[in-house]
């Protein structure tokens, strides 16, 4: 049985349902539990105790799960009105995010499906937390709604496969209270073939492929996956990446000599087209106009990033086992490469510098024992790194001219998942 607060009981029930328990045994206490004095939390436990005893001994399951239905072909809706009416009705029914959509008519879907050789009835997986069945047909529906071109379908299908991989932990990233979103990095020939933004403003506006693919990914996550605020998406503030996720192509044209692109680091061939997806917190912009040596630059960047990794970071030992992504701007990459630095040397230097003294961790922070087990004995002056190994720092060349690089911290439990793009 589970004790949950008034603000989170709906998420708890949705999660239980999606795991196969239509009416779980719950006890509800007034929100919050965290950040209140000890006396108050003990009082809450005393007030809830009779109900805890009752549910522990008297609960019986009564509810039923929704019946299973055929996933393909998707059902049709008939709507009388204008395009504006379609948009209003879709939004009211929770079938869009509030931005305009293009009506997904059967003709548009058929046109979209010409962009992929995958069969429309092929099931890619179940999108959490609603456990919606995602077929290739349904990917085409959302691609049409977002305004994608048919040639974007292979990238969208690969991104969807990555989203549904258990290592992506999309359920965690989409239902959290954090401002998390998906980061999608595209590598290989497909970047130029379909015009994925990979140079100046790569992740921003004016890139049709990025905008529509990023929008489609979020449509799939929120409509098929059912993750919308205020529940089960419990994001405290949310953000624009909930509409169009972070997506850019690596600027492979600006790779320093001898450096491999990100997908080759991940084990693919250079000629492969690859999509890598990871759940992240909002990225941090490293503005360095002044360093003239790699040591200066890494020293500055590591000290800039380290306190910002507080995103609860030090308390969640699991994050230390996850990759962190450095989106090096080409000019910063050039500074490092011209001094003869390789990616491995950057990883090691960053790992050694980006550390927090153990004394800075909040008292009562859990997992100290686990930290010690993984990292070794610590004292207040021990400098704790952001990852357990320098190999967990991934490097991507991101963007165009300008003295900016970006740090993409992982959402806990989320690992990058790379899928090959297949036409």
């Amino acid at each position, binding site marked *: *049985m589970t004790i949950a607060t008034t603000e989170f009981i709906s998420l708890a029930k949705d999660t239980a349902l999606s795991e196969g328990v239509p009416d779980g045994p719950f006890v509800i206490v007034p929100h919050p539990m965290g950040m209140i004095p000890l006396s108050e939390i*003990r009082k809450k436990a005393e007030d809830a105790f009779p109900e805890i005893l009752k549910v*522990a001994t008297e609960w019986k399951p009564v509810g039923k799960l*929704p019946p299973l239905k055929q996933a393909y072909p998707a059902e049709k809706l008939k709507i*009388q009105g204008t395009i504006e009416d379609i948009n209003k009705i879709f939004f009211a029914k929770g079938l869009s995010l509030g931005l305009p959509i293009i009506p997904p008519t059967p003709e548009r879907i058929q046109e979209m499906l010409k962009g992929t050789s995958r069969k429309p009835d092929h099931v890619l997986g179940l999108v959490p937390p609603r456990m919606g*069945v995602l077929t290739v047909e349904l990917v085409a529906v959302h691609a049409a709604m977002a305004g994608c071109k048919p040639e974007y379908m292979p990238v969208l299908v690969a991104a969807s496969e990555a989203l549904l991989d258990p290592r992506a932990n999309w*359920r965690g990233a989409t239902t959290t209270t954090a401002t998390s979103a998906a980061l999608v990095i595209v590598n290989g020939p497909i970047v130029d073939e379909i015009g994925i933004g990979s140079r100046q403003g790569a992740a921003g506006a004016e890139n049709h492929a990025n905008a529509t693919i990023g929008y489609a990914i979020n449509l799939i996550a929120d*409509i098929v996956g059912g993750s919308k605020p205020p529940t089960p998406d419990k994001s405290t503030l949310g953000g624009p990446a909930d509409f169009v996720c972070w997506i850019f192509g690596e600027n492979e044209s600006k790779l320093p000599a001898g450096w491999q692109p990100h997908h080759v680091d991940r084990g693919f061939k250079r000629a492969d087209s690859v999509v890598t997806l990871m759940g992240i917190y909002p990225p941090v912009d490293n503005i360095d106009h002044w360093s003239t040596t790699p040591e200066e630059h890494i020293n500055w960047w590591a000290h800039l990033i380290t306190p910002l990794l507080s995103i609860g970071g030090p308390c*969640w030992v699991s994050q230390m086992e996850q990759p962190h992504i450095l989106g090096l701007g080409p000019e910063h990459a050039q500074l490092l490469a011209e001094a003869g630095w390789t990616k491995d040397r950057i990883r090691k230097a960053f790992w050694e510098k980006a550390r927090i003294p153990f004394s800075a961790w909040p008292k009562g922070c859990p997992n100290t024992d686990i930290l010690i087990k993984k990292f070794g004995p610590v004292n207040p002056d021990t400098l704790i790194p952001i990852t357990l190994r320098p190999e967990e720092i991934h490097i991507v060349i991101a963007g165009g001219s300008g003295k900016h690089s970006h740090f993409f911290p992982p959402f*806990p439990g989320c690992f990058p998942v790379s899928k090959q793009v297949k036409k």
Partner: protein
Amino acid sequence: MRQKFLYFVCHSGLDPESSLFDYIPAFAGMTAWEITYRSVGRTTLDVAEEKKGVREMKRRSAGRRITFLILMIVFTFPWVLMAMERVQLWEVVDPEGVIRIEPIKINPHPLTLEGKTVVLRWNGKHNGDHFLNRVAELLRENVKGIKVVKSWEVAPETVDPIAGNEERSKEFAKKISSLKPDIVIGAQAD
């Protein structure tokens, strides 16, 4: 008024070498006469003629306006119709799709907690342990023979508040299951 005075000076017929003071009385008189004529000096016939002319002018003007309006409607309405979005019956594909949830069997809850093993599971969020500590105290005070196990004390690796991912969750469930609980009480603090 200045222009009118200058015009009067040029066309009055008075001696050009007359002084300005000679012009002013004549101008004033002319102006007074003009005003009088306009207000009361016109004859009834003049007024009738004027009104007839104005009516005719208005009739012709209204006719031109109506003709213009009709022509505008005839030539622009089709274009307006084409520009307006038509209400139509749309057939669209439902983007939500279906769900697929496999049921799982929850073990029946014990009829009493006396003599049973209760595992308290903390998710690592602030105060969750303090809440469960008090629950543990109350269980021991009120339930005979109960055994209370705090997961964070015997299996600290199961405390990972935002683990979330399926693999780790299964590991935690397995570890907690190995403690042989009759029931698990979890606090999802936040």
